[in-house]
């Protein structure tokens, strides 16, 4: 036991004396969370829009004010004629244009039907669709406003309610995904590199020619990184709650237990990588590059798994972060308990046991 403790302490020395490890350990999660939380988002805010008002009456001006007041649009006031619209689109800065025809207000009041033209840059179809939807909604609101009592027969008025995330805050989706990604990368990279470093530096030769059992070497490597990863988890949670307004609706103990399970799973994967690689560089490549892409692709936080063809869905089942993502979303956002996520937990536990057993078995008691 004393041997074990002294080994763990040595690992901590390694971590705290190496700037590169510290950077990966504490810089990476902070950077990723901030990047995904703030910079990378699928929401569209402050899109540049042109309003060409040929009508110039009360109705068109009121509608223009409503568009300007919305957080989605910034009106570009420099363009006022139809010809200039196309020039502006060609420059690519303007995403959308609204054209009020002559007599817009008059048509609306007397003819009951007024037309307004919406032009969108559909080179990016998703943005174009989103922006026209926003505009249609604003126009609908205006119509309600000027004629609240209008009694259109047989009308269906949908009342939508966005559960768990009423503001459609994009970081709610990303943060659990990034948590899974960051923990996965850090745990596998650091453990694999730390074991391979012993091989590369030759210290593994001395460790093997000692009464300290090889199995203990594996475990003593895993313990410090488990502790450090838990600190990482706390940092990520603090950042998401206080900076990104993420709620933690579920049981925080359950959240930590599930995360610990996931971390152990990733550590075991790192141990496995270390026993099949020879140099730190290869171990780093395998665990960073090799893990990054599958994790991003198959976790489901960027590309929905439901839309993937079945072979890819099958592959995604092999990625531990995919299960952890489901668990953490259920616990953090929806406040659910173990009763709902026991299946995912069981899958993770199974993976962890298998990986740990394989990596201890494949840890060589001799060189080569």
């Amino acid at each position: 036991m004393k041997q074990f403790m002294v080994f763990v302490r040595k690992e901590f020395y390694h971590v705290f004396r190496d700037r590169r490890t510290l950077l990966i350990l504490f810089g990476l999660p902070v950077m990723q969370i901030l990047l995904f939380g703030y910079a990378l988002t699928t929401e569209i805010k402050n899109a540049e829009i042109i309003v060409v008002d040929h009508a110039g009456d009360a109705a068109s001006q009121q509608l223009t004010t409503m568009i300007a007041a919305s957080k989605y649009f910034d009106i570009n006031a420099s363009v006022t004629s139809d010809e200039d619209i196309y020039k502006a689109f060609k420059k690519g800065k303007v995403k959308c244009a609204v054209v009020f025809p002559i007599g817009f207000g008059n048509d609306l009041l007397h003819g009951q039907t007024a037309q307004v033209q919406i032009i969108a840059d559909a080179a990016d179809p998703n943005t174009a669709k989103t922006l026209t939807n926003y505009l249609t909604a604003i126009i609908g609101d205006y119509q309600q406003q000027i004629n609240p009592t209008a009694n259109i027969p047989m009308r269906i008025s949908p009342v939508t309610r966005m559960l768990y995330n009423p503001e459609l805050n994009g970081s709610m989706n990303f943060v659990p995904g990034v948590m899974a990604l960051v923990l996965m990368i850090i745990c596998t990279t650091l453990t694999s590199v730390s074991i391979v470093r012993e091989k590369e530096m030759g210290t593994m030769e001395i460790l093997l020619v000692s009464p300290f059992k090889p199995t203990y070497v594996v475990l003593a490597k895993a313990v410090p990184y488990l502790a450090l990863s838990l600190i990482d988890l706390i940092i990520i949670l603090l950042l998401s709650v206080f900076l990104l307004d993420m709620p933690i609706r579920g049981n925080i103990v359950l959240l930590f237990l599930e995360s610990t399970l996931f971390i152990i799973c990733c550590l075991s994967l790192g141990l496995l990588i270390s026993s099949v690689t020879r140099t730190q560089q290869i171990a780093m490549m395998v665990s960073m590059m090799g893990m990054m892409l599958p994790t991003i692709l198959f976790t489901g936080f960027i590309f929905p798994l439901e839309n993937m063809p079945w072979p890819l869905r099958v592959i995604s089942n092999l990625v531990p972060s995919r299960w952890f993502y489901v668990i953490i979303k259920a616990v953090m956002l929806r406040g659910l308990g173990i009763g709902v996520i026991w299946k995912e937990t069981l899958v993770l536990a199974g993976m962890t046991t298998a990986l740990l057993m394989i990596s201890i078995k494949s840890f060589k008691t001799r060189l080569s």
Partner: protein
Amino acid sequence: MDTVILQHVSKSYVKEGPPALQDVSFSVKKGELFGLIGPDGAGKSTIFRILTTLLLSDKGSATVAGYDVVKNYHEIRSCVGYMPGKFSLYQDLTIEENLHFFATLFGTTVEANYALIKDIYEQIAPFKKRRAGKLSGGMKQKLALCCALIHRPEVLFLDEPTTGVDAVSRKEFWEMLQRLKAEGITIVVSTPYMDEASLCERIALIQTGQILSINTPANIIKAYPGKLYALMATKVHLLLKDTRQYAGINLCYAAGDKLHLSFKDDGKHHPAGLLSWLESKGQQGVRIEEITPDIEDCFIAKTSIHE
């Protein structure tokens, strides 16, 4: 029973090409200082790795302190000290931390066996707060020796401990080995430096995975075939080339600023013949004298016969 026994051990790393070890057998008596002498790539490190249970041999058997290297590897790992050829301590840990770590790993304390390492440790103790990676070559090796000794091993395996170490530190290092031998520790040490061979009790000369001879250094020198001469001239330029053209030459090679050479055993009086041959070639001030061979000369003679 001898402490270290190797019997007909062979080992290949690759299927094609020459094996790393071919039918190597030797034994080391208890308390002996045994040297493995040979150039780089001769197979010295492979022998160490087989004896320290790090590698499995393809053929043959080996025992250390009575334990079989395959079956009882765990017992061997507790009772030997091993210092690999490459510096293998934690570079980012200080001298103190390294020593404490290895002491604890072997289930002992620095204090318990301090007497054994005291002489060595005191030399590096002033730097005990310095990280191992920042030490000089000689200090690194002293620290590595301390770490290998801290659990008072029965057998000490030192793989090229003096490679990359300055001449003064090398001398100190060998003095330490003599003291450890006096403590009753069996030591197997390898070195590519032939001058260090005479400091061992018995040596094995190794070349390309085969043992050329095993004996005491004195006996190996005594068994030198024929006579060895040293040749000097005022101008060394072309001396080697001219000498090699002489018909009676068996071996001729540079050793410092002289040439060492031996003649063919065909009953002719060659030294005088060589002198007149060289003078006819225009060499001036040529002198020749018979000398006692050293281990390096023996090694070269053995290698040439072998080839």
